[in-house]
């Protein structure tokens, strides 16, 4: 039997978290459940009816969806590893106390992720336009201009460069924080023991950063699966849907075409399932590595 003090403490506790719980319930939990229910509805606009697995069947026949899924996977598989490796290298370099001007470089590399999304997207769009600064520079160097916004391949490259530019510094900060928690004498011991620098990175730094690398990989995977802002602002999903992502397609389904709320909810749940699977796989890989 709980005493009165304990009961009062319980009531107090619930009262304190009630405002947050109510808001979360209205704006998160309810919409999530609603969208799950919606994903089984077919129909356009406000006329919808229960369609069972019809939406899921539609996914497999929908070439635009398959295109968006493919594009998103390409972004994921190419961009996340590049960014993680870059962020690691920057972090290790900028953790060196002997490096001149390292706080300047740290700030410079971190700064992109605090700039306005739209502002940077607009800048990228103008810089990489057919006659933008980048092509002018390339021509000035005697190279051919690159059709950044009009070629399907180069448009993907541009989007990857943009998100890498924006998010590398953000990931680097996590690695820097982790590196600064490493006892310096571990590296000194390795130096005295004659462990070469590459081996110190491979066998000491990397394993010690593994939990942080896992965390940033999961976060970046989720972020890339939801990729929307850059394709929307820089390439508008084009050319010919070369940079159309899943999130962008959901937006199109919901707001651009005759709204198909049920089907767009289904596509949203595809992202949820993908995030779940990939995160599970990443944790599994991390645990395997620990056992080995």
């Amino acid at each position: 039997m709980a005493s009165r003090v304990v009961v009062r403490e319980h009531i107090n506790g619930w009262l304190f978290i009630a405002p947050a719980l109510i808001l979360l319930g209205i704006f998160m939990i309810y919409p999530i459940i609603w969208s799950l229910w919606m994903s089984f509805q077919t129909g356009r606009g406000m006329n919808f009816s229960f369609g069972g697995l019809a939406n899921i069947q539609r996914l497999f026949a929908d070439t635009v969806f398959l295109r968006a899924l493919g594009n998103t996977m390409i972004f994921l598989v190419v961009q996340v590893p590049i960014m993680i490796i870059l962020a690691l290298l920057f972090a290790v370099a900028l953790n060196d106390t002997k490096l001149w001007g390292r706080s300047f470089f740290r700030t410079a590399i971190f700064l992109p992720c605090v700039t306005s999304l739209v502002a940077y997207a607009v800048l990228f769009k103008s810089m990489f336009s057919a006659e933008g600064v980048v092509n002018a520079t390339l021509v000035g160097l005697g190279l051919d201009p690159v059709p950044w916004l009009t070629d399907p391949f180069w448009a993907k490259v541009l989007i990857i460069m943009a998100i890498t530019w924006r998010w590398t510094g953000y990931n680097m900060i996590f690695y820097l924080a982790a590196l600064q928690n490493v006892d310096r004498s571990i590296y000194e011991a390795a130096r005295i023991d004659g462990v070469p620098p590459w081996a110190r990175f491979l066998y000491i730094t990397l394993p010690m950063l593994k939990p942080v690398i896992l965390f940033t990989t999961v976060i970046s995977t989720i972020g890339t699966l939801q990729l929307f802002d850059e394709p929307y602002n820089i390439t508008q999903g084009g050319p010919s849907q070369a940079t159309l992502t899943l999130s962008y397609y959901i937006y199109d389904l919901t707001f651009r075409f005759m709204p198909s709320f049920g089907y767009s909810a289904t596509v949203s749940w595809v992202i949820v399932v993908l995030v779940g699977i990939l995160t599970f796989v990443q944790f599994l890989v991390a645990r395997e590595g620990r056992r080995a």
Partner: protein
Amino acid sequence: MSGLKLRGVRKSFGSVEVIKGVDLDIASKEFVVFVGPSGCGKSTLLRMIAGLEAITGGELHIGDELMNDVDPSKRGIAMVFQTYALYPHMTVRENMGFALRFAKVPKDEIKRQVDEAARILELGPLMDRRPKELSGGQRQRVAIGRAIVRHPEVFLFDEPLSNLDAELRVHMRIEIARLHKELKTTIIYVTHDQVEAMTLADKIVVLRDGVVEQVGTPLQLYDNPDNLFVAGFIGSPKMNFLKGIMENGAVRLPDYENRIVPTGVRAADGTPVTVGIRPEHFKEGGSAALPLTVDIVEHLGGETYAYARHGNGDLLTLATGNDRAVGSGDSYEAKFDPASMLIFDAGGLRIR
């Protein structure tokens, strides 16, 4: 095995000089302890020998080789750190064998070496554990094992016992002494704990503010300190210091009813001096005495320390042997042999 030779070794960080010219000879197989208060430069000096800090000036020889600019891994040294510096994600076995992998030692030879070190340090049952599953003392043994497998000419220990509790510290101290006997290598050991220095060292180097104050065997430093600093630093409890004035080949003690204590030390009449008397040198049967009132008594069982003063003077520490009758508030004639007095001049240097 190699000895070491330091000649005019200096270290500056910017305009701040932290090691101000150290000359030192360390014989092969010698156990040398650097001791001094924190900030005296003892760890910096050790790190310079290890090659972790650059040498600003002077020469460092290990064996017969000039080592100033040699890479740490090529100096024939191994180092044990205060924080153990074990690789957290590796097992004990991997920690100990890691360096050998890069020295191109064959796998079965690594295993043999690691097993041998594990035997010496009694680490057998722990070989597959990770550092976080070990106690502080076990971690330190692994760190020592990691040093042993490299067969260094010189072992460097940087305050290896400071993170251990008091009981374990005594135990590990004995382990390290045993290890020195068994391995017969040169050891340089840094500590701020003068008891560790006294118990372990063949030779103690007392450092203060980047300067060597005195070098000698533990008993030389205890019996025959060169200056006030060494006299006060070596010995526990600390030596008592009294104000004195030289008069007619004797010392007058103005704070103790102007008592006159004869001394063999020669100095001009009227010279102000500091008189040092160790707590354990107050003994029944001494021909000189100080009139004191006991303030506080500490009974340790085998030893009784009395803290006493004359009037409102400084508190003196007396080791009364096992005199359990001493009580707080007692008047006490603290007898001592005048020959056990050490006399220092106004600049703190010993007058002999």
